[in-house]
């Protein structure tokens, strides 16, 4: 990442372009700097620009940085929240894929009456405020006994993720064209062989991208999880919120924030590599 950035800077960019890149990098990375500093601070009181006391100076009092000591201990529930977040994200992604793959195929390839109305309808969940959806769902789920359960949260997470996934996969299917499948049939492949040997492998990069995206969205949903989890199911976003709700960013909240960003960063790195290397070089040839 850093290396690429340097290369970008040193190659033929105008001073303005370099400046622009630096500003963007500042915007993206800037907010992390106080977090990192904070998490290693012992005491950091206003209005000091840097912590008054660093953890390193207090080695004899604390084995690890205070914040990290807390974050990594069971009391913080960070581990529990991480497991919950990943579990819910995985299930949501799988269900979302199962629903959206066939839907996207139809949307990309077929014409039917009311198609554009249907497409508009699909994006509605993105337009209606999450809070409204959350409250409405909570009412229903309490009746159904789904409030505070994994099933309830997973169902709720499907609402904002399906519109994205359908859109991404529709684009992927549109890019696939019928030629490949028809060619396979002419060469003698039956339906199952076409699906297994041609369609799925060719959709894979798009499907992986869509799945990663869905997973990331799911792991970042706060409001719906907060409403429907009823405090019984803790995920990383809700845990973080409970730490910073008081309006202060103490060392442990800073540590948790950094932990919360980890799944996203790891996934982005994986997807970056995967999509680059597995997607047969230059995309779909021709």
């Amino acid at each position, binding site marked *: 990442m850093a290396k690429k950035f340097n290369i970008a800077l040193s190659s033929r960019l105008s001073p303005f372009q370099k400046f622009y890149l630096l500003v963007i990098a500042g915007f993206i990375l800037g907010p992390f700097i106080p977090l990192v500093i904070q998490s290693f601070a012992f005491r950091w009181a206003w209005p000091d620009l840097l912590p008054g006391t660093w953890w390193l100076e207090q080695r004899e009092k604390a084995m690890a940085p205070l914040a990290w000591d807390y974050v990594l201990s069971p009391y913080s529930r960070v581990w529990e929240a991480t497991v919950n977040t990943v579990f819910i994200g995985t299930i949501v992604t799988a269900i979302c894929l199962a629903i959206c793959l066939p839907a996207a195929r139809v949307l990309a390839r077929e014409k039917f009456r009311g198609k554009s109305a249907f497409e508009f309808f699909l994006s509605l969940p993105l337009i209606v405020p999450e809070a409204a959806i959350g409250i409405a769902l909570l009412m229903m789920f309490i009746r159904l006994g789904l409030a505070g359960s994994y099933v309830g949260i997973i169902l709720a997470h499907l609402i904002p993720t399906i519109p994205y996934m359908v859109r991404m996969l529709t684009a992927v299917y549109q890019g696939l064209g019928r030629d490949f499948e028809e060619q396979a049939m002419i060469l003698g492949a039956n339906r199952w062989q076409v699906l297994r040997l041609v369609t799925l492998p060719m959709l894979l990069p798009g499907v992986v991208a869509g799945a990663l995206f869905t997973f990331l969205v799911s792991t970042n949903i706060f409001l719906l999880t907060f409403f429907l989890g009823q405090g019984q199911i803790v995920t990383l976003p809700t845990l973080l919120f409970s730490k910073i709700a008081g309006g202060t960013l103490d060392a442990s909240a800073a540590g948790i924030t950094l932990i919360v960003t980890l799944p996203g960063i790891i996934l982005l790195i994986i997807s970056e590599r995967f999509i680059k290397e597995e997607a*047969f070089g230059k995309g779909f040839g021709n």
Partner: protein
Amino acid sequence: MTKVQLNAVRKQFGAFVAIENIDLDIESGELVALLGPSGCGKTTTLRMIAGLERPSAGAILFDGKDVSEQPVQDRNVGMVFQRYALFPHMTVEKNVTFGLSVRGTPREEIGARLEEILDVVQLTQFRHRFPAQLSGGQMQRVAIARTLITKPSVLMMDEPLANLDTKLRGEMRRFIRDLQQRFGITTIFVTHDQVEAMELADRVAVIFNGHLAQYDAPAKLYQQPASLDVADFMGASNIVPGRMKSDDLVETAIGEIRVAPRAGFETGKDVQVMLRGEAVDLLTDPPAQGGVAGRVVARDFFGASVNYSVDCGTHQITVSEQARRLVDVGTSVRLNIDPERVWLL
């Protein structure tokens, strides 16, 4: 080897008629070109023969047997798509053997046939590459190899040369012609380039707007088109309206032209006279009698050949010659036309 027949085949997409009652007989081992402007229904015709599209009416026969109900997989046809449709996630080798492996051909046989076909299309050294790493011509040869290896009884190619540059086109034309003759496969290919159709095909089917306009050998199509549209599409530039003065003389705006008598063209009939540029002699020597008088107004020099535009009053006639001599612009000339080479429409 398979004889292909289309009997009154029609194809409708909703209310839109893409193909209107086409009858087409393709002899076993013949190489036929479907020629026509964009959107006339060439691809649709191929797709129906392949079984990717069902005719709305009519029948498609292979060796006299109706295959209209037969699914694609069982027709044993081959088709090279306009954009090749190589599987991008498979190497050249995997692409080529796809047809055999899905049919469950034994491993050793696949191996042997792979070597054979890679040799034919000269792709042995590229066998481990992915399609994205090949040039246009190489991709096309992979597409052809992938189809030929399945030994199809009918080979179809949809504008196989459209994506190639001029030089490669020439090479690939010869290559396809050789292959077709070596394997003797009944072959149907689509093109909208009349030169390509004439160079490659035994017979050419010209399609306009879903109608079969003419189905003939290239020479006949070129010299004796059945209609003005066909003449126009085959690049005829000199078409002059006229009236039959007697059964071997046409009165036209540029003068009287002698023709060979032909049934159906009686005295008094309004006709169109088509003159092929290379069938017209340009006479510069003084008092030549007969023929059409004119003046050279433009000269296009192509090296081996040269085209003159001759102004004959109301019309300009294009004459092409071997560049053995050059006539200057402005020269007064007479055009002499062999009656046998004049075509009436």
